[in-house]
């Protein structure tokens, strides 16, 4: 495969380029918790782990992933930890402390931010985290830069002794563009597994207050060294000429370039590669030759505030535009940047002739056909409509959509369980929460301990589909193998819940709706109840069955028996169900159906049947044989 070639040009995703950069830098360890838009970094690293000798792991959460990477760094080896922007919140406790303690082997923390919130709950700007921690921040704008800055990051880390934050955004991580391949690291090329040695250094590694007091000034010393490094390596370039200055970074630089080309105006651009610490002398020198300066950056006025402060300190009187004419929310793009440049130059604003999109049936993200989460939401609503229903981060957040509307809250990873503990007390009522397997292991566990300890009346339904589905099917402790495919313990969530002291624990097959309902009713009779709904991700299961050439059952509607009542559609909202308004009949799209039978189980007229291999119709859908088939799907998934 071309990915491990040592020359030539490959069309790489920004995230693939980061993994590739780490391989070229002879990384020893890549640890991660998956999260869009960062997930492809560990995915690609894991794919080539065996050939390269790099240790790749999916850790149970970002904080653990950070600690695993630090362990490699403190053993004198290069390490990279990757996460989405909000993952750094989880890892922050360790990150902030290690920022004082510093790296030994080069240590890169990759944060993939999501301006515009394409798949996130907020658009926090993690450049601020770099400043908060006192850690240098590199910001690539293209896949090529993503690779180059990854390599530079390791060198910067070793030159200064600091951790380095590589901050990408969705538009960098998820852009594919040509990337020049260079030599792989020596060990990576040989496929050698690296081993390091931890050398005791109590002042550095033991964060007692007396040591931390010694280490804090070190943070400032490292930032100073980072400036030297950036200067010596030619980071932060000035491009073009003119009185009008633009200070920018990352993908925003490309918007600037394109807008200037179309406007036919010239400007002098300061393109920042390392946005923190900011090279004050460079900025002052750049601005002193400009009559006005526009800072083009997504989200927070991070660079702008620093630029203004530098100009103030030096008594330089230069007009600075930034967030006065550019939005502080959402990602930027060509038109926003072009209009800001026009505004700053006093030109009239070009408004594109954008055609109005007519009123259309929306097509938001939706639970897949055959997804067992749908059944859980159906049953939870049926059994207890009045309970508050917190949910969590995963595909199942889509339980919020029409027609399921079966969740009330979603905050952040694992938050459903802690929130439920509080809600049960605050409301004086039972709370019914839903959480996925990976999220349960991520941060649900300590909150469940809390619920048991504080006796919160909670039914926690763990949607155990044996995989981290939403981010692209990464394995987790419920899967039975690791990131690199090694067989590992398959942790049984029900056993864990029992061990933690839950009053009622039951494992059920959510494809069997009556069984699911029974468990939920029983659960309501106890204080802390955990119901584990075990059915693999339908998408993954269908694709694995196809690979094994096993039959995937499909269901059809008997038009003579269908009354067009739409109970199936209104209760389940499965994308494979199609309602014909003229014929007043429901049909099943055979290309989409994955054979879960939920529609057949809820149909009041028994109009939905399984199509048997000989073409005959089987209306009795809930037989022992069918239940055994589902059981097999869960237990022999891989």
């Amino acid at each position, binding site marked *: 495969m071309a990915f491990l070639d040592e020359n030539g040009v490959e069309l790489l995703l920004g995230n693939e380029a980061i993994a590739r950069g780490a391989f070229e830098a002879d990384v020893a360890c890549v640890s991660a918790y998956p999260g869009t838009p960062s997930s492809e970094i560990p995915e690609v690293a894991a794919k080539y782990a065996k050939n390269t000798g790099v240790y790749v792991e999916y850790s149970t959460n970002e904080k653990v992933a950070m600690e695993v990477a630090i362990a490699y760094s403190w053993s004198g080896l290069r390490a990279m930890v990757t996460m989405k922007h909000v993952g750094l919140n989880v890892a922050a406790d360790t990150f902030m402390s290690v920022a004082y303690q510093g790296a030994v082997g080069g240590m890169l923390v990759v944060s993939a931010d999501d301006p515009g919130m394409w798949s996130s709950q907020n658009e926090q700007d993690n450049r601020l985290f770099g400043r908060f921690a006192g850690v240098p921040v590199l910001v690539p704008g293209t896949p090529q830069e993503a690779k180059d800055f990854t390599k530079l990051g390791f060198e910067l880390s070793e030159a200064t002794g600091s951790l380095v934050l590589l901050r990408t955004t969705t538009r960098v991580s998820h852009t594919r563009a040509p990337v020049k391949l260079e030599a792989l690291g020596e060990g990576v090329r040989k496929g050698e597994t690296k081993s390091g040695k931890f050398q005791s250094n109590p002042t550095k590694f033991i964060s007692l207050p007396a040591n931390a007091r010694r280490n804090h000034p070190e943070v400032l010393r490292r930032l100073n060294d980072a400036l030297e490094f950036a200067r010596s390596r030619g980071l932060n370039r000035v491009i073009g000429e003119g009185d009008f200055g633009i200070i920018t970074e990352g993908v925003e630089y490309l918007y600037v370039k394109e807008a200037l080309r179309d406007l036919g105006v010239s400007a002098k651009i300061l393109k920042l590669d390392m946005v923190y610490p900011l090279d004050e002398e460079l900025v002052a020198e750049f601005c002193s030759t400009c009559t006005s300066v526009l800072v083009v950056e997504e989200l927070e006025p991070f660079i702008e505030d620093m630029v203004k402060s530098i100009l103030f300190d030096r008594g330089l009187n230069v007009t600075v535009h930034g967030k006065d004419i550019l939005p502080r929310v959402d990602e930027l793009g*060509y038109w926003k940047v072009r209009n800001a440049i026009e505004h700053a130059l006093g030109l009239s604003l070009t408004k594109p002739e954008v055609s109005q999109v007519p009123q259309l049936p929306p097509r938001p993200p939706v639970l897949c*056909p055959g997804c067992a989460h749908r059944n859980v939401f159906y049953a939870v609503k049926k059994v207890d409509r009045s309970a508050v229903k917190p949910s969590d981060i995963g*595909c199942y957040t889509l339980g919020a959509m029409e027609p399921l509307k079966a969740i009330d809250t979603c905050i952040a990873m694992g938050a459903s369980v802690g929130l439920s503990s509080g809600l049960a007390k605050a409301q004086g009522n039972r709370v019914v929460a839903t959480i996925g397997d990976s999220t349960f292991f991520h941060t649900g566990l300590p909150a469940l301990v809390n619920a048991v300890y504080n006796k919160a009346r909670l039914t926690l339904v763990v949607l155990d589909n044996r995989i981290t*589905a939403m981010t692209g099917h990464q394995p987790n402790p419920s899967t039975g193998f690791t990131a690199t495919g090694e067989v590992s313990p398959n942790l049984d969530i029900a056993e864990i819940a029992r061990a933690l002291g839950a009053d009622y624990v039951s494992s059920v097959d959510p494809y069997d709706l009556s069984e699911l309902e029974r468990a939920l009713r029983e659960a309501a009779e106890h204080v802390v109840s955990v119901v584990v709904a075990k059915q693999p991700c339908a998408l993954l299961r269908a694709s694995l069955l196809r690979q094994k050439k096993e039959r995937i059952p499909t269901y059809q509607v008997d038009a003579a028996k269908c009354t067009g009542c739409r109970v199936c559609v209104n209760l389940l909202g499965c*994308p494979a169900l199609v309602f014909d308004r003229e014929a007043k009949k429901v049909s099943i799209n055979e290309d989409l159906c994955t054979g879960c039978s939920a529609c057949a189980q809820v149909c009041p007229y028994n109009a939905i049947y399984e199509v048997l291999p000989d073409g005959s119709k089987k209306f009795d859908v809930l037989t022992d044989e069918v239940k055994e088939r589902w059981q097999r799907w869960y237990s022999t998934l891989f």
Partner: protein
Amino acid sequence: MVFNIVLSGVGGQGILTAAKIIGRAAVHEGHYAAVGEIHGLAQRGGSVIGFVRISDEEVSSTVPEASADLLVAFEPLEAIRYVNYAKKGTKFVINTSPIVPVSANLGNVVYPSVEGIREQLQSFGPVSAFDALEIAKEIGNPIYVNTIMLGKASQLLSELVSRDSVERAIRESISRDLENNMAAFDRGYSL
């Protein structure tokens, strides 16, 4: 020079694979290409949009509104949904086989007429509309919608990217079932 392509459809139809193949083909041809992907909240069933920008210099991967040169829609509703990217002269390639979204099964929201969608798009530029699902099923599997659409798009791109380069990119990107995919590509290209 920047040539802007928008690809849209429903999650699971292979839109991002098609975008990657066009991008790869453009690079084989000696151009710079930036392919933009958005990975959403779910694996399947939601509206999906991807971008390919072919250029002679480094560009971002996002197509600005009102500037698509070519819009390839794998599903008719997802063609009109992204009409904000169209401009005077945009060319369209549309699969006319609908995938009805859940929202159009509930309440009173109605799926619009495919003919109406086609007429609206024709006010911008030429529209190639055909039932790619039917052709795919003739070849043997709905999955070939992807390479059929890619075939027609490639024909419209032939001045910029040669057929050979696209075929090479397909061979590099699709490992399984190459023969049928090539047949599907040819069917699309000949439409």
